């Protein structure tokens, strides 16, 4: 792998806390590296033991089957030793603080921590607790940088240069870490971003994120090259205050339907999964050749391999 790397510049980042800390050059570098790992995945033996001397803990305080599987597969494809720590409940309920937990785990000589937690800022907190490299696999509604990287990777398979490309993200903008990381990343590489959804699912000052805002799906789909529908979190519907009236009305207003694909023939459908069929997307839309949802999943493994490779000092040791 190291022999194929361009030059010998070490990757300057130690962690991946969020795309907010990465420059456009960092992002594009990760995405370029990921191409090579994507090719590896198509080989008969899709393994490349570049992390065989590394020990990684997946620290998941929130349920996330697919992100954890994707990271774990990426780790195993690269020969890392992997341990999984899952806790359904918060640290405060569990009796041991997160700080104690991570310091205990770290004492077992861990090189890298992949963290998923409901609280924004947990990856930042972890950097103050231990020396290991921290990768954010989702911190509340803050960032989910590897998701945004895999989304951008998937877009670049269709549009190698994202400058000037238009991406609309549709749905629950306020509570989505996928949105935040994508907005940050896409804007850094020169794409234009619009958010679209019910006003009650938009954060205050949403325009301060540097995005266009629309409450009209037709307008958004007519404008964009890529339309990313976001999963509607069902808990938003029974947490006491409903933020929109019904799934039925949501689908009426913001669900992408086959008729849209006919009316606007140029845009590509994306979704970070898991899809609520009949809510964000009409079922046929999810299965149509305009959707690249399964490509996103495959690409996720390659992008995570690239991230872990670079952060483990891959270029220097490779």
């Amino acid at each position, binding site marked *: 792998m190291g022999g194929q790397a361009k030059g010998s510049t070490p990757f300057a980042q130690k962690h991946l806390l969020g795309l907010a800390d990465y420059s456009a050059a960092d992002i594009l570098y990760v995405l370029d590296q990921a191409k090579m790992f994507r090719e590896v995945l198509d080989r008969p033996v899709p393994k490349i033991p570049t992390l065989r001397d590394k020990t990684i803990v997946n620290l998941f305080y929130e349920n996330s089957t697919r992100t954890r599987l994707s990271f774990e597969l990426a780790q195993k494809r690269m020969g890392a030793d992997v341990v999984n720590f899952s806790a359904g409940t918060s640290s405060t309920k569990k009796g041991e603080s997160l*700080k104690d937990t991570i310091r205990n785990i770290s004492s077992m000589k861990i090189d890298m921590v992949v963290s998923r937690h409901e*609280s*924004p800022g947990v990856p930042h907190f972890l950097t103050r607790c231990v020396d290991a490299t921290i990768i954010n696999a989702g911190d509340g509604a*803050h960032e989910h940088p590897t998701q945004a990287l895999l989304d951008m990777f998937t877009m670049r398979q269709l549009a190698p240069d994202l400058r000037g490309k238009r991406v609309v993200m549709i749905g629950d903008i306020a509570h989505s870490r996928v949105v935040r990381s994508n907005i940050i990343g896409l804007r850094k590489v020169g794409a234009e971003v619009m958010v679209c959804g019910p006003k009650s699912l938009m*954060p*205050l000052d949403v325009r*301060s994120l540097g995005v266009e805002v629309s409450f009209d799906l037709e307008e958004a789909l007519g404008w964009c090259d890529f339309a990313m529908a976001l999963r509607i979190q069902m808990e938003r519907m029974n947490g006491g205050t409903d933020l929109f009236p019904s799934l039925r009305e949501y689908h009426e207003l913001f669900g992408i339907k086959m008729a849209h694909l006919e009316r606007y023939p140029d845009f590509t459908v994306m979704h970070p999964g898991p899809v609520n069929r009949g809510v964000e997307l009409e079922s046929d839309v999810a299965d149509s050749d305009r959707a690249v949802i399964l490509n996103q999943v495959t690409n996720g493994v390659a992008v995570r391999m690239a991230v872990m490779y670079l952060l483990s000092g891959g270029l220097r040791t490779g």
Partner: protein
Amino acid sequence: MTLKTEPRKTPSLLLKNCKPIGGIYTGNEQSDLRIRDGKIAEVGSGLAPAPDELVHDAGGHFVSPGWMDMHVHFREPGQEHKETIHTGCRSAAFGGFTEVACMPNTTPPIHTRDVVEYIRNVASGEPVAVHPIGCVTKERKGRSLAEMADMKKGGAVAFSDDGDPVYDPAVMRTALEYSSMLDRPVINHEEDLALSRPGHMHEGSISTKLGLEGTPSIAEEVMIARDLLLAELTGGHIHVAHISTRNAVQMVREAKAKGIRVTTEVCPHHFDLTHEEIEKRGFDTNVKMHPPLRTQDDVDAMIEGLRDGTIDAICTDHAPHSIEEKEVEFIYAPNGIIGLETAWSISVMRLLEPGHLTLPQLLEKFIRAPREILRLPVPALEVGAEANLTLFSTDETWTYTEAVIRSKSRNSPYIGQTMRGRATGIYHRGIWVLNEL
């Protein structure tokens, strides 16, 4: 920390080279101040030490009537791992405060006369007078009124369910009616919980960026609007606790102009820091408090409110939490910071040095205003009066470190910061406390 000089009974003290400010004294002239039997005995230049006197060279620092913080949380009884009345008083003395009013969200809450008297008894030997604020409602639950008159007899100076608002408007109406009969304010923690929960920081551009649930300014403003209307209706005195938004200041300004009995207070962090700190400091929970740090525009409005008198007092909302409670995930961390030890320095740097307030104007916020709100006597700086004094500088440069902290807790965003202006000692109840670094 171990104090080099423990506070001690010092009935007779000669402060050499101090600049008295307050009463007839302007702070422009350096002189000596003699205390005999706990009373101010003599002010003049070149006073000779008597044989039984402790002499302290004040090095040209000011001496004013003792300061008061009308909003602290001393955690005793019930949460002594965060702070006790003793450590709280130690912290207050280090900040230059000779009197404080403590909020009743203890366990049990200060909701009956016996708890009021318990606090006063525990604090009776301290150099800092601790005035309990009683609960508005029994158990601090917001439903039925606590025995306010009885608590007043026991020494309660005001009523509040602070930590939580008095949420039910009918309860608030009754509380204002009843407390007006007792000539004591109701202090409300202004927060409409339906609008604010589950907020973890100010709702705005930074909460949007960080994905943290926001506490909107209107959660504070809606509650203040309600309380101002109820105060107008009842003639009761509403004291708006820890004000933090521009609209809130404007509403109080207009209410005062209409003659509504309203007063308010602001914490130093609300005229110093903004919500941007949460991003800058990588989700440091020492910038998580309620009300949250807001915008620069709100900070500017706090300063305007202090300048034109809309905001009467400076308070700290001193809220100690232990390290294990604060060193957790941002959304699980409790709100609040300790503030007694840094209030003066922040006020000097943010209000005095930029010229927003003169020194006498700033001292009003620390001396007269809180006591008038709570109907307490304002200590006099005059010969014959009980010596209730704060010794302070406005230009000494020092660094606030963990090593100097007197509070039992260390949850301050100011640790490591260079400060200007310091309270160098207090004298109260015949006890001299020299604040050494």
